[in-house]
């Protein structure tokens, strides 16, 4: 029985906290002395934390926050007889303020990190700004960092050309024509996007690297969080430690973990371009538990007749959770696939 050979060290905290995978963990603990000893330690650590008191935030913090908030211009009161004048003046002020805010919001700050990056047709040196519609380009000697409002930054590697498409609060968007970027975003999901010729990277709260050629051949690698790589209804979910290729006319490929075997990655590369049976056979044979990231995506990408092989391989690598039936999985029932993905993600 394979289940008894696999230690449950990394599942002890979720088992104690939330009784996750209770059957599996308890069956293993009954037979494994090493994991029982670790269980005692994890429980002791959890109990020890009960002695850590919650600290009270000093009142001075809110005072500091209020003084920053109060730094905004104060409102004025007006005498009744001047109401009409005030209304007109107010409208003008609001209009001017709106124009200033919109003008400023439409431009992102750019730091030159070496060499002399170009925004539009001007070399910016150490600092500049870029607006929606403008191009920014680095040569072999230069790099640049764009501050994406206050949600993060995008660093352009040498020999990169990109265009700012949108700088709206709910839609911050860059088109990467060629080269490489390093994006660090801290914001609610789906307000920062990078378009390439063959895919769009939608930020789900993350840090990632994206390289693309002009024809749309590219690779995205995620350093933390998740990125959704999308094109024409095809979506690849890429977590920390994983990468995903994108190709002209094909869009995003199937995501894979960087630490997968070379043979696995070669077979996946082949399958994404040719859908060959030999490549699928090699992928299934070489997959590890963690590679269920790739297999889960393949469920909906292989021919209908091959779904059963993919299902069986995932089921052999990790127990199928309650609520996931083979029949529904093979029919690509969205709720079943989502539930299975959430459970498989424990191993990703």
């Amino acid at each position: 029985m394979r289940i008894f050979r696999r230690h449950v060290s990394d599942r002890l905290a979720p088992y104690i906290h939330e009784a996750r995978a209770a059957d599996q963990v308890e069956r293993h603990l009954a037979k494994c002395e090493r994991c029982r000893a670790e269980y005692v330690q994890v429980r002791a650590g959890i109990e020890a934390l009960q002695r850590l008191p919650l600290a009270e935030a000093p009142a001075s913090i809110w005072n500091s926050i209020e003084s920053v908030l109060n730094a905004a211009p104060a409102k004025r009161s007006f005498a009744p007889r001047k109401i009409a004048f005030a209304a007109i003046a107010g409208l003008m002020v609001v209009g001017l303020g709106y124009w200033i805010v919109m003008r400023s919001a439409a431009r992102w700050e750019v730091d030159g990190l070496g060499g002399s990056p170009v925004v539009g047709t001007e070399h910016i040196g150490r600092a500049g700004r870029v607006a929606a519609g403008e191009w920014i380009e680095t040569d072999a000697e230069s790099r640049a960092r764009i501050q994406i409002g206050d949600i993060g930054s995008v660093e352009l590697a040498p020999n990169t050309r990109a265009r700012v498409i949108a700088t709206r609060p709910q839609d911050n968007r860059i088109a990467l024509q060629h080269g490489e970027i390093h994006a660090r975003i801290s914001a609610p999901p789906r307000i920062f996007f990078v378009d390439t010729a063959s895919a769009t990277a939608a930020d789900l709260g993350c840090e990632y690297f994206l390289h693309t050629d002009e024809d749309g051949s590219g690779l995205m690698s995620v350093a933390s969080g998740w990125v959704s790589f999308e094109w024409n209804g095809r979506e690849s979910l890429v977590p920390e430690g994983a990468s995903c290729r994108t190709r002209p006319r094909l869009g995003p490929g199937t995501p894979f973990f960087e630490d997968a075997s070379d043979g696995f990655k070669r077979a996946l590369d082949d399958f994404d371009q040719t859908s060959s049976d030999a490549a699928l056979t090699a992928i299934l044979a070489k997959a590890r538990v963690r590679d269920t990231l790739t297999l889960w995506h393949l469920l909906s990408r292989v021919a209908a007749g091959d779904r059963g092989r993919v299902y069986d391989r995932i089921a052999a690598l990790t127990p199928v959770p309650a609520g996931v039936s083979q029949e529904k999985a093979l029919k690509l029932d969205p709720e079943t696939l989502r539930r299975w993905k959430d459970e498989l993600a424990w191993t990703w």
Partner: protein
Amino acid sequence: MVDLSDRQVSTEIIDACRLGDRDAFRALYGLYKDQVYSVALYFFHGDRGIAADITQQVFLKLIGNVRQFRGDSEFSTWLYRLVVNVCLDAARHRKAEPPIAAEAKLESLAGPDSLEQDFARAEAANSVRRAVSALPSKFRMAILLRYFEDLSYEQMARALGCSMGTVASRLSRGHRILAERLKNFEGRRQ
């Protein structure tokens, strides 16, 4: 453990914050200030100054970006993603804390106004503080989020920007290391 049931954030509070309502901001701050401050305090080895600065930064960012919060993720997940990012950014920009200074700051947390009424209890709390402080930062942050916020594994995964499996691994290993360190501290005292 903190009970979340009495401080769920209503959509009315969030909507009022979006409109710039200062009272709503204050209510939001009141709901989360101690948890955010405590995570920062123990993450930065008992340094009250940094913890206050982190708390201020987190809430100013929150107030500045609340219009972008669309409600399609839980508020606490978004808030703690901010906490994690601000803490990690601050940690990157700080030099390593000299062990003696960190130790002194941790000891100073057990003041006369704390809940620790007797020496043995204070000693035990100090040992836990030191053990938490000595954890690698990834384990430390996961443990603090779980303990002070009682976030679920899904929420922690989103706040920490990693998979639930990684959260499970960090918490399991972190608690194990914590228990081992506490055993060592107690061994030295005896």
